[in-house]
């Protein structure tokens, strides 16, 4: 049984439908969610996901080994940046990010445990919308797409240290927002 995405990829290129289906199962959902959270447009997210699969198939010669996941998400990231540029988004992903201080208000363990699964999901969704585009993309690549820090560095074409800093800063921003929202929830629910 094929286990790695790279092996599935080889089989898919030889016409194996089930391998292609498995590849969609592995990356289709996370790609769609990546585009959806970054564009907030259901139809565009579906179109872009389709386009990623079309591109990887068309430019199959360009894949020269390594991590298939990194390659796929690199294409996805480039498509997203192209879309942002088309829609007049500012120049994305500046090299030097300003240092972010930890502004999160500490939340008690019982408050965290009292928050339900669905509530947390909704809170994350709200906070992602409020995050700046760079941080949102970084967070989505790591926590939605499940990329490791080295894979993220490869996708974003940057040194490992810079990738780490980006993730840390993005998380600090997200955590501060989440903690604030959780405190509000706590007051509302009288916890």
């Amino acid at each position: 049984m094929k286990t790695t995405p790279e092996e599935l990829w080889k089989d898919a290129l030889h016409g194996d439908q089930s391998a292609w289906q498995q590849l969609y199962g592995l990356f289709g959902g996370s790609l769609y969610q990546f585009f959806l959270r970054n564009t907030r447009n259901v139809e565009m997210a579906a179109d872009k996901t389709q386009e990623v699969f079309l591109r990887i198939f068309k430019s199959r010669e360009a894949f020269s080994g390594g991590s298939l996941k990194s390659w796929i998400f690199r294409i996805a990231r480039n498509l997203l940046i192209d879309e942002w540029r088309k829609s007049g988004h500012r120049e994305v992903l500046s090299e030097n990010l300003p240092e972010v201080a930890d502004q999160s208000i500490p939340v008690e363990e019982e408050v965290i445990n009292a928050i339900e699964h669905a509530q947390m999901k909704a809170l994350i969704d709200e906070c992602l919308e409020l995050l700046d585009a760079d941080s949102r993309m970084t967070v989505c690549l790591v926590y939605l797409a499940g990329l490791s820090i080295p894979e993220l560095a490869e996708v974003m074409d940057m040194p490992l240290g810079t990738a780490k800093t980006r993730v840390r800063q993005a998380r600090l921003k997200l955590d501060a927002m989440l903690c604030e929202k959780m405190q509000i929830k706590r007051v509302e629910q009288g916890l």
Partner: protein
Amino acid sequence: MNCKELKNLISEAEDLAAIGQTPAAGTHLKTCADCRANLAFEEKVRQGFAAIACEAAPPDLAAKIMAIQAENIAPAEIQKGDPEADSWLDRLLLSLQSFPLKVAFTAGLIGFLSAVLMLRQPQTTPVREPTSLASGQQQETPLPAQDEELLLAKAKDKGLQIQPEISTVSGIPAGNEDENTGRDSMQMAMAPRQRHLESKSEAAIESYNEERIPGAITFTLDSSADTFVADREASAATLADQPAASEAEMQLAMAPAATSRFAAPPPDGEARPRLAASQVTSQGAAKKMKTMQSEAIDPSGEELRELIESSGIDLPEGFINLDELAMRGYLPSERLKHLRPASGNGWYLQKSGNKLRVFLKKR
């Protein structure tokens, strides 16, 4: 292990469950409430992200992506054997695989077809023709001077007192009685000045028709009072001519209630209240608008309102973001497609007390 080290470990760890199992971290976690809270928070965040990642993509997306492989492998294989397979048609079809292009292509095609259909429709609005053409008269050309003199001489022989100006001005052959006896006699009876004016007005109509924009709607208001009198007289004459009709039958036929056409005409000199065509149209449009406003409850708007009410979402007053609703799982993607308004419009949520109203509004 101190708090900072554990924090770094938590943020970089791929498996959070493994952190508690390491002896150093386990010991610290037992004694530090903040780090326990931190670990619990991280677990919740990752679970939340995992739940978002597991949200289903649209069902048709899988089918589209599965088709990519089938469509792209076949041309690739054909290309190896037959270099002519990469024709312009293949390339066009390949470029049309992208969904937005398909939509744009279809929209363009529909637009073109509807334009062709609109242009092919016959003009249904009545166009007023010049009287000379409408009555089937032929355009008359002035006769040469010699013929005129001959005709005048003939007329003199018949004892008709015709002034030469008549034929000169109107250009009508005075002696052409065999062909158009009735018409000619009428034209002869006309004063030269009258004829001159008539020909002027005909020319004006002709020039108007020439200047008219093709396809423009022309409204013609007839004098209904005159029509009425003429109609009434005509019907009375028709009824009187029928010998079998009795006096009672005739009275019944002439009764004002029998038909509204025989209503009493307005007295002479009194201005009959008449509406201009534009007034009639605007009044009709206003009535229609009122009816539409009172009757039109958009079923899609109602559907959306019911969905909002049943989901218990507290949306602020204003435009509804359908994508947002879909993303949060309140609106399935099939319904989203069905409810998405045309570009430039949006669903507007209005709150009056506890009552919600959803309607289309221009953005």
